[in-house]
């Protein structure tokens, strides 16, 4: 079980309010991802749930019981830190077994549970090594192993993959996803990488300056962003925003169109522009288009390869059913 509820939670450091009153429910078994730009309070929120940071006001409930005053270790939550926070003087075996040892569990059972966790994480060959002798990905798995053996009500991850290289990050992403499928335990995952958020989450919580901008499934956020901020934050490359007369045609202050929802032609279309940089990824091409008179730059995404040169004239046509409309306050119409 692991249903986590934040009720009217706030946090201030001195006079600075980092989290204004905030309500949020994470259901049992959910994979919730907190995303948002740097400094928006994701880590602070996670640490408050873990009990490492006191609440300024409000309440946290875990499985319906008020946990605000419960010490961190008794909340039944396990956390994986960005720096892994492995104990450098202990072997991998001791590291993974540490929470069990602290819980005064019998040595035989500790050994058995550590082995089970190590097997599932492919760490059997490294059990007697020290953390310093492991690669980044292996360290990350040890940190996860240390969390798993406790059989927690929920896992908390604070940017666990940000120290890994791109290829390893994709691999670990899948492993964590796999782990969630297998354990069905609640997971709360903090990241500022929206690709991680989109691929792993059941539920994404978009934060800005401590305020929840939108909560929803990845596709909900992608197809129906509540406001300009979420629209710009979710999706890669970023959504294009157009203001002015073009927007007024759609009865909106701003319209947004995703790069992948724009048709491209060299001969005719709704908007005319000049090709700037074209990024050829093989599978896709990102073309940055200037001089449309609509915005500084529009980005379009074309599937496959397309031969355009810097300076070419290009015509763009937004797909009518994919246009997002926002009012003057930036809210979705």
């Amino acid at each position: 079980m692991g249903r986590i509820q934040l009720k009217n939670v706030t946090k201030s450091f001195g006079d600075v309010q980092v989290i204004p009153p905030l309500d949020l429910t994470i259901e049992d078994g959910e994979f919730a991802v907190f995303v948002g730009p740097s400094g928006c309070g994701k880590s602070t929120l996670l640490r408050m749930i873990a009990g490492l940071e006191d609440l300024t006001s409000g309440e946290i409930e875990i499985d319906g019981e008020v946990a605000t005053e419960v010490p961190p270790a008794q909340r039944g939550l396990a956390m994986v830190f960005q720096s892994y926070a492995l104990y450098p003087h202990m072997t991998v075996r001791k590291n993974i077994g540490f929470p069990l040892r602290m819980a005064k569990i019998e040595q035989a059972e500790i050994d058995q549970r550590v082995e089970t966790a190590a097997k599932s994480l492919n760490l059997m060959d490294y059990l007697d090594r020290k953390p310093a002798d492991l690669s980044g990905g292996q360290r990350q798995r040890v940190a996860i192993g240390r969390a798993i053996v406790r059989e927690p009500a929920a896992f908390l991850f604070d940017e666990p993959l940000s120290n890994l290289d791109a290829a390893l990050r994709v691999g670990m992403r899948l492993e964590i996803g796999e782990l969630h499928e297998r354990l069905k335990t609640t997971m709360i995952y903090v990241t500022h990488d929206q690709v991680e958020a989109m691929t792993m989450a059941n539920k994404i919580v978009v934060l800005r300056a401590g305020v929840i901008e939108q909560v929803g499934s990845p596709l909900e956020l992608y197809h129906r962003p509540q406001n300009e901020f979420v629209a710009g934050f979710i999706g890669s490359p970023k959504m294009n925003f157009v203001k002015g007369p073009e927007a007024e045609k759609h009865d909106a202050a701003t319209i947004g169109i995703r790069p992948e929802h724009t048709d491209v032609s060299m001969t005719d279309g709704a908007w005319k522009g000049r090709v700037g940089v074209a990024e050829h990824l093989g599978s896709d091409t990102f073309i940055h288009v200037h001089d449309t008179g609509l915005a500084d730059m529009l980005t379009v995404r074309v599937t496959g390869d397309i031969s355009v040169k810097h300076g070419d004239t290009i015509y763009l046509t937004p797909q009518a059913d994919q246009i997002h409309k926002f009012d003057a306050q930036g809210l979705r119409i």
Partner: protein
Amino acid sequence: MSDRKLPRLLQTPAVLLLLVWMLIPLGMTLYFSFIRYVLNSLRRPEWTTPNLSNWRGFGNYEFVLKSKDFLFAIQNSLFIVCSILILTVILGVLIAVLINKTFPGQGIVRVLLISPFFVMPAVNAVLWINMILDPVLGLQGIAIGSINELLESLRNVPLVDWFFSLWPKLEPISFRATQTSAYAVIIMVTWQWTPFAVLIFMTSLQSEDQQQKEAAVLDGASAWSQFRFLTLPHLARPIAIVVMIQAIFHLSLYAEIEIVSRGNGNKNLPYLIGEFANNNIGAASATGIFAVILANIVAFFLLRMIGKTLME
């Protein structure tokens, strides 16, 4: 010239200088330890100048080995050094952990804590033996005197008088006595060197990883477990350094021993050398060679111990 030769060549003068610096005193000590050489002798004036014709072989060594103070001095050296090491490391770790937390007046407390280290050893010894440990005039004498007075007056209070009349009159301890002078030296050197340990441990504590501590908190580790399983292993290396440096320094304690009891009941090898050197340079030199051997043995064990902690 290959690129290895040039650096070697450039190092040569410094290395030679260092060798000469070490080898000449060691050579002279060795030489004196094998001849008869005294400062004053009416009976044998020819012994007062160092000369190969006064060759004595291992005679000086035999003389030193047979002298009644030699074994005692070695045991006592080790006793003093080990006691100081244990006390400074324990106190140093405790104090460093305590003052590592942020609290008001932290800066002043830290400066005050370090200050004993800047007192000269002889001053330190005079201060302790006369002002603090003296059984009559020192703090010890005054404290015990006033406790005795307090007990005395309590014996006249009805109801509790029977209880306090069971208490003995407290006797102050004289730290210049044969049985206690070593303890006096241990106390004063510990006081002086604990700040050194605190300083080293504190720097190390500040580099301790806070996320590890938070992880341990979440793993259910108590304050003691955090200390035992995280802080103490983290301090292994600085502890090794403190032990090593202090061992080297304290094997050659002199001023404190001289001032506390003039060697009465409390000698170490340097003090023995000093006593021999009043007249018998040959015996003093032989003792010096023994001291070199002892220092090497101690250094050997310490290095192995440190090597082990570094491996872990």
